[in-house]
C-alpha cells in the first residue's frame, strides 16, 4: 500500500454548512501537511479519517479500510485533536493508563509503554502532576503521547502547534519529525500556517472552503504563489522618487500613493524580483523606508489566487 489515505470526491455537510466539497486527496507514506485557513475543512477531514463522522458522498480509505463504524481500524490510528479535552483532575500518567485501557492494554508492559511514550514526548518529569496545572505545550505533548501509546501506524495531528510559544513549537516540530524518521510512524499534520508545516515536511495539501486546492511538493506550490500578483505597502519619507522609479520596472503593475506622500501601495507581478531590487532602488532614490509589508504573503490570498 503506497497511500495511507485515499479520498475521492468526498463531500460532507452539516445542515446548510458544507464541510468538505468534492474533496480528493492521496496521502502517501511519510509526513504530510494539510494546510488551510480556519474553516477550510481540515478538522472535518480528520473526523472522517477517524470515523467520528461519515461522508455524505464519496469514497474514503484509510490504511486500505473504510473508517466509519470500523473500530478495529482505530488500533492502527492515533488521533490528537486540536481542542482541549484532557480531564483536569487526572495526572498525565493516569490519563495514559486510561487511554491504554481503552486500547486493551494492561499489565506490567503497559506501565513500561507509558514510561516510554512519556520519554518520547519529554513529559516524564511532569507525568505525575495534575493536568489542570499543565501549560499549553505540556497538554499538547500529553495528547500526542496518548495518540502514540498503542504504537499506531498512522498519526493524525490536528493543529498541534496552535497556541504554543515559539520554544514549544520547535520542540513539537522536532518531535513530529522524529516520530516519522526515528520511530517510523506515518503522520498527517494540519495547520493554518504554511511555514510551520514547511519545517516538518515538503509534502503538503492545500485545502480551502472544503476543496483541495493543490497538493504535492511544497516547492511546486511556492512557485504558484510567486507567480501571482502581490500587494505591498511601503511607508517612509521621500517616496515619490521611489514611486517614479518603480513605475519604470517591468514587474510593477500599479502604484497608489497616499495623499500625505508618506506611504504607497505597490502591486507587483513578480514579488521575488521586486524584493531583490528594492535595496538598490532605495539607495538610488535616497528615500527613508520605515515599513515594508507584503499584504498577500498569507494563505488567504494564496488560496484566493489559486481558487479565483
Amino acid at each position: 500500500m503506497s497511500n495511507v489515505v485515499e479520498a475521492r470526491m468526498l463531500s460532507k455537510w452539516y445542515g446548510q454548512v458544507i464541510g468538505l466539497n468534492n474533496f480528493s486527496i492521496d496521502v502517501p507514506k511519510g509526513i504530510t501537511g494539510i494546510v488551510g485557513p480556519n474553516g477550510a475543512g481540515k478538522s472535518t477531514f480528520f473526523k472522517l479519517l477517524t470515523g467520528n463522522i461519515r461522508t455524505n458522498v464519496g469514497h474514503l480509505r484509510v490504511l486500505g479500510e473504510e473508517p466509519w463504524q470500523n473500530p478495529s481500524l482505530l488500533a492502527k490510528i492515533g488521533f490528537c485533536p486540536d481542542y482541549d479535552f484532557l480531564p483536569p483532575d487526572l495526572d498525565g500518567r493516569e490519563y495514559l493508563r486510561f487511554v491504554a485501557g481503552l486500547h486493551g492494554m494492561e499489565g506490567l508492559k503497559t506501565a513500561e509503554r507509558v514510561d516510554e511514550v512519556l520519554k518520547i514526548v519529554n513529559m516524564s518529569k511532569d507525568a505525575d502532576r495534575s493536568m489542570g496545572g499543565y501549560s499549553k505545550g505540556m497538554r499538547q505533548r500529553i495528547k500526542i503521547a496518548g495518540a502514540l501509546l498503542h504504537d499506531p501506524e498512522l498519526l493524525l495531528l490536528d493543529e498541534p502547534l496552535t497556541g504554543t510559544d515559539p520554544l514549544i513549537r520547535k520542540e513539537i516540530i522536532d518531535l513530529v519529525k522524529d516520530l516519522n524518521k526515528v520511530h517510523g510512524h506515518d503522520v498527517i499534520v494540519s495547520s493554518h500556517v504554511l511555514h510551520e508545516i514547511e519545517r516538518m515536511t515538503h509534502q503538503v495539501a492545500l485545502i480551502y472552503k472544503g476543496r483541495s486546492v493543490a497538493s504535492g511538493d511544497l516547492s511546486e506550490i511556492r512557485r504558484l504563489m510567486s507567480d501571482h500578483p502581490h500587494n505591498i505597502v511601503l511607508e517612509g519619507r521621500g517616496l515619490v522618487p521611489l514611486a517614479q522609479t518603480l513605475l519604470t520596472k517591468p514587474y510593477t503593475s500599479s502604484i497608489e500613493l497616499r495623499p500625505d506622500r508618506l506611504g504607497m501601495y505597490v502591486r507587483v507581478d513578480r514579488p521575488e524580483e521586486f524584493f531583490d531590487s528594492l535595496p538598490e532602488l532605495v539607495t538610488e532614490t535616497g528615500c527613508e523606508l520605515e515599513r515594508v509589508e507584503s499584504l498577500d504573503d498569507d494563505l488567504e490570498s494564496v488560496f484566493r489566487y489559486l481558487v479565483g
Partner: protein
Amino acid sequence: MGLDPIGYKPWDGQRTEHGRRFLVVAESILRHKLRAKWFLAMLIIGTFLVHVMPLFILSMMPHKELEAEVMRDQMGGGLYFIFEVILVALVCSDLISEDMRSNSFILYVSRAMGVKGYLLGKWTGAMVTIGLFTLLPPLVLAIAVTATQSGSDYLGSLAVIGQTLIAGIWSAALLIPIGLAVSSLTRKRTYASVGTFMFFFGMMLVSGIFTGLSQDWSLLDPSQVLYQSHTVIYGLELTDSVNKALLGAMAFLLTVPPMALVYYRIMRKEAGK
C-alpha cells in the same frame, strides 16, 4: 485596499438615562426566551391546558359575573403551579448561571449599570417573560368571562380583573427569586433547572409528610403559599387553619432572602474571591 487610517467618530446620538438601562437587559431576556424552543413549547402547552380550556368552559357556562373565587381557584390550581415552576426553571436557569460561567458580568457592570441595575434587569426580564403565562392568559380569561356575563355588575367584575392583574404579578414575583437564586449557585443551566424543580417539589413533599402532624406545615408547600396569598389578594376569607403570620413569613422567605443571596453571589463573583 486603501491606506486611509480608520476614522473614529464619537457617538452623538441619544443615550438612555442610567435609571432605565435595566430595561435593555430585560428586553434582551424577553427576546432571547421567545426564541427558545422549549420555553415556547411549555408556554403554549401550559397556556392551553391551564387557561384556554377553562376560558371556553367558564365563558360558555351561565354566569352572572366574574367571581373572585373562580379566578382564585383558576390561579391556585395544581396544574397552574406545576407549569409555572417549569417555566420559572426554564427562564431563570441561565440568567445568572451563564454569566457566571462566561464571566460576562463585566459586560454589564463596566457600562455604568452596576450590580443593582443588572439584577433589576434580570428580575424584570424574568417577570415579563413569566407574566406571559401568569398574567396575560388569566387577564384574557377574566375579560372573556366578564364580556359574557349575564349580570350588570361590570364594576364588580372589573375589580376582580384588577385583582387578577395583581395576582398574576404576585405569582411570578413569588417564584422567580428562587429560580434566580438557584441559577446563581451553579455555572450550568441544566443543574439550575433541576435545582429549581427539586427545591419546589422537595418543599411540597416535605410539607405533605408533615401536614399530618400539624396544619401549619402545609405552608411549607410553595403552592399553598401561592393559593393562600391569592385568597388574600382576591379579598376572600382565609380559613382558620391558615396561620396568617406564617403565611407572611413564608412569602417573605421565598422572595427576599433568595434575592439577597443572588446579590451576594454576584458581588462575590464580581469582586473576586
